[in-house]
C-alpha cells in the first residue's frame, strides 16, 4: 500500500489533480458557486470539444511529433459535411454527419500522415503547411461562410440533454449535451488502443526512440501514417460536436485553439519530446486549462488580468511537471547505479 501511494505521488497526474482541487476550492470560497451541479455540468460541457482535440494532439505528441493543423482540419471536415447534408435537405439523425466528417477527416489526416510518416518530414512544418492549405481550401474552393441553420438531427444531438443539473438556490439549469458521450467513447477507445494493442504500444515506442522501435520490428512509417489518420478522424468528430452544440457552423471559430490544447496536453505531463505521458494526464491537463479559462469571472479576476492569470497557471503547471520528470529521472539513475 505504502509503495503504491509512493508511486502515485511520483506521478504527475496527482499534482495536476491537486491543483484542480485547490483551484476549485478557491473558486468556491470566492463565489460559492464551484461545487454546484450546474457549474460542474458547465465545465464538462466546455470540456467536450477541447477534450477530443486534446486526445488527438496527445497521440501526435506521444509519437514524437506535433499537430497544429487539427483546428483547420476539424473546421474543413465539419463545414463540408454540414454543407453536404444541408444541400441534400437531410433530416435524419446525426450519425451520417459523423460518418461523412470522419471520412473527410481521415482523408485529410492521411495527407499529414503521408508527408510526416512516409516522407519523414518535420511534423510541425508539415502541419503548419497543411493547416493553411485546409483553411485556404475552405475559404477559396468552398467559399465558406457562416451556416446559421444546421440539419435538425445535428441540432437535436447538440442541444438535447444527457444530464440536466439545476441549481436550487438560483434556479439555473445547465445541460450536458449528448456530445459528451462522443468524448467518452473517444477516450475509452484510445485508452484501449494505446494500452492493449501493438499499434498503440508502437506509438509510444516510435516516440521514445524511432530507431530502436524500428529495430524491434515496429513499422515506424506505417504507424505514423495510420496515427495521423486517427487524429484526423477524432478532430473531425470534435468539429461536428462543436457545430451541433453551437447550432451553427462558423468556419473560423475553431482556428487558434491549437496552442491552448498543446499547453493542456503538456501540462498533463506528456513529454514534448515524445514517448512518455498518459491519457489521464492529458485529460486532466486540458481540464485544468478549461477550468481556469471558465472561472475567471467566478473568481472575480478583472478582464484585463485574466490572460495573465491563465498564463501563470500554464507556466506553473508545466514547471511542476518538468520538475517532476527530472526527479523521476534521478531516481531511475540512482536505481540503475545501485543495481550496478
Amino acid at each position, binding site marked *: 500500500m505504502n509503495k503504491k501511494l509512493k508511486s502515485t505521488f511520483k506521478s504527475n497526474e496527482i499534482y495536476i489533480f491537486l491543483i484542480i482541487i485547490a483551484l476549485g476550492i478557491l473558486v468556491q470560497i470566492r463565489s460559492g458557486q464551484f461545487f454546484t451541479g450546474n457549474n460542474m455540468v*458547465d465545465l464538462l460541457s466546455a470540456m467536450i470539444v477541447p477534450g477530443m482535440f486534446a486526445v488527438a494532439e496527445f497521440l501526435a505528441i506521444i509519437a514524437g511529433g506535433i499537430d497544429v493543423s487539427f483546428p483547420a482540419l476539424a473546421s474543413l471536415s465539419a463545414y463540408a459535411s454540414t454543407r453536404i447534408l444541408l444541400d441534400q435537405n437531410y433530416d435524419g439523425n446525426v450519425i451520417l454527419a459523423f460518418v461523412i466528417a470522419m471520412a473527410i477527416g481521415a482523408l485529410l489526416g492521411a495527407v499529414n500522415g503521408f508527408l510526416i510518416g512516409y516522407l519523414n518530414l518535420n511534423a510541425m512544418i508539415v502541419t503548419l503547411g497543411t493547416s493553411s492549405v485546409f483553411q485556404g481550401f475552405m475559404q477559396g474552393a468552398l467559399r465558406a461562410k457562416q451556416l446559421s441553420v444546421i440539419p435538425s438531427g445535428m441540432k437535436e444531438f447538440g442541444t438535447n440533454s444527457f444530464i440536466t443539473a439545476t441549481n436550487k438556490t438560483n*434556479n439555473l439549469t445547465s445541460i450536458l449535451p449528448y456530445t459528451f458521450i462522443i468524448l467518452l467513447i473517444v477516450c475509452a477507445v484510445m485508452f484501449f488502443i494505446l494500452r492493449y494493442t501493438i499499434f498503440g504500444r508502437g506509438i509510444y515506442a516510435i516516440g521514445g526512440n524511432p530507431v530502436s522501435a524500428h529495430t524491434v520490428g515496429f513499422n515506424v512509417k506505417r504507424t505514423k501514417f495510420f496515427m495521423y489518420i486517427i487524429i484526423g478522424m477524432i478532430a473531425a468528430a470534435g468539429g461536428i460536436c462543436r457545430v451541433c452544440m453551437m447550432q451553427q457552423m462558423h468556419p473560423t471559430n475553431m482556428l487558434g485553439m491549437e496552442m491552448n490544447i498543446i499547453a493542456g496536453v503538456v501540462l498533463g505531463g506528456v513529454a514534448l519530446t515524445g514517448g512518455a505521458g498518459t491519457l489521464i494526464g492529458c485529460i486532466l491537463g486540458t481540464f485544468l486549462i478549461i477550468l481556469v*479559462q471558465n472561472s475567471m469571472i467566478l473568481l472575480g479576476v478583472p*478582464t484585463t488580468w485574466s490572460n495573465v492569470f491563465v498564463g501563470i497557471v500554464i507556466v506553473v503547471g508545466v514547471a511542476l511537471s518538468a520538475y517532476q520528470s527530472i526527479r523521476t529521472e534521478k531516481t531511475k539513475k540512482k536505481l540503475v547505479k545501485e543495481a550496478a
Partner: protein
Amino acid sequence: MKKGIAALLCATMVLGLTACGSDTKETSGEKKAEASPASENQSQLASDEAVKKASDEGWEIAVVPKDSTNPWFVRMDTGVEEFADTTGVNCYQIDTGEIDATHQAQMVEDLIAQGVDAICVVPVDVESMDVVLKKAQDAGIVVIAHEGAELKNVDYDIEAFSNAGYGAFIMQNLAEAMGEEGVYTTMVASLTNGSHNEWADAAVEYQKENYPKMTLLEENPRVESNDNGDTAYNAAKELIKTYPDLKGILGTSSYDAPGVARAIQELGLQDKFFTTGTGMPADNAELLKSGVIKSLTLWDPAMSGQAMVSLACKVLAGESITAPLNLNVDGYTEMTEREGSKTVLEGQGWVTIDADNVDSFGF
C-alpha cells in the same frame, strides 16, 4: 482490469446509441416581409433640386462595391436601383465579381476611361484605391467613398454613424428589452478592439444620462468574447452564475449577442435575461423569431448606397456641402462632419432588426 475496460466500452457504446435516437420537433415561423426600404424620405428625394438636375442632365453615377456577389452588396444594389427608379437618375452598381483589390482598382480605371460623372466606391484596399481615385479626380470625376475614412483623394466619405452615436443606439435597444431597469454589463471582442470599446463606452455614457434605474455591473464592467460565439456563451453563463442580479449583456461584436442568447436559452432565462448587439439578419433570424433576442442593431447597405448617390448628385450640382447635411435618405438626414476631418461625414444610419423585419434584408 480488462473486463472492467470491456464493460466500460460496452456501456459507452450503449449510451452512444441511445444518444442517437431523435425525435423531430420543428418550429418554423416563416414570415414574409416586403423587401422595400422605401420611406417618406423617398418622395422628398425625387423632388430634391440636385437630384432633379442630375436626372435632367443625365449625369452618370457608378457605384463600385467590394464584392457584388456578397449579399451585403446585393442589398446595396437594391438600394441603388431603387434610387434610379424613383428619381430617374442614371445611377447603377457595377458587377465586380468576387472580392479582389486589384480587380476593383481595374474596374475604377475602366470607369474613368468611360468618362462617368461620379464614382461611388466602397474600397477593398484603401492604399491601392487611393492611387486610382487620384486619377479619377484629376479627370474631373466626383469621388464619393463609403467605409473608407482613410482615403485622401475623395470629395467625401460617408460613414453610417459615429461610434458614439451607434453605442448609444445599442443601449437604447438593451434598455427597451430590460424595461429600463436592472444591472447590465458590456461585452467586446477584445479590450484592445478600437471601435467595440468606443461603442461600449458610449453606451455606458448614454445609460448614465438617460436610464437612472439601470446600473453597470461594477465588479466586471467589460468582458471579452474574442469574436467567438462559444466564448461569448461560456462567459455569459459564468456571469449569470456569479452575479444573480445581472439582467443584461450589451454586445458589440456580431458574435456576442448570438452567443449570449444560447446561454439564455439553455439556462431557461428567456424574458428574464436580455442581450442585444450587432448582428446579421439571416444568421440570427431564428433567435429573433423565438424571442430569445428582442432586437439586434446594424446599418443598412441599401441606405448607404442611396446616400452615396444622393451626395454625388449634390456635389455634381455644385451645392455647398455643409453640416448638418440632409441627403433625403433614412438615417442620412442630419449628417455631421467627423471631428478633425473635412471629408468624412457621419449619419445616424443604424437600424433595429427584430422578428418583424429580419427577413426583409436579404442577407
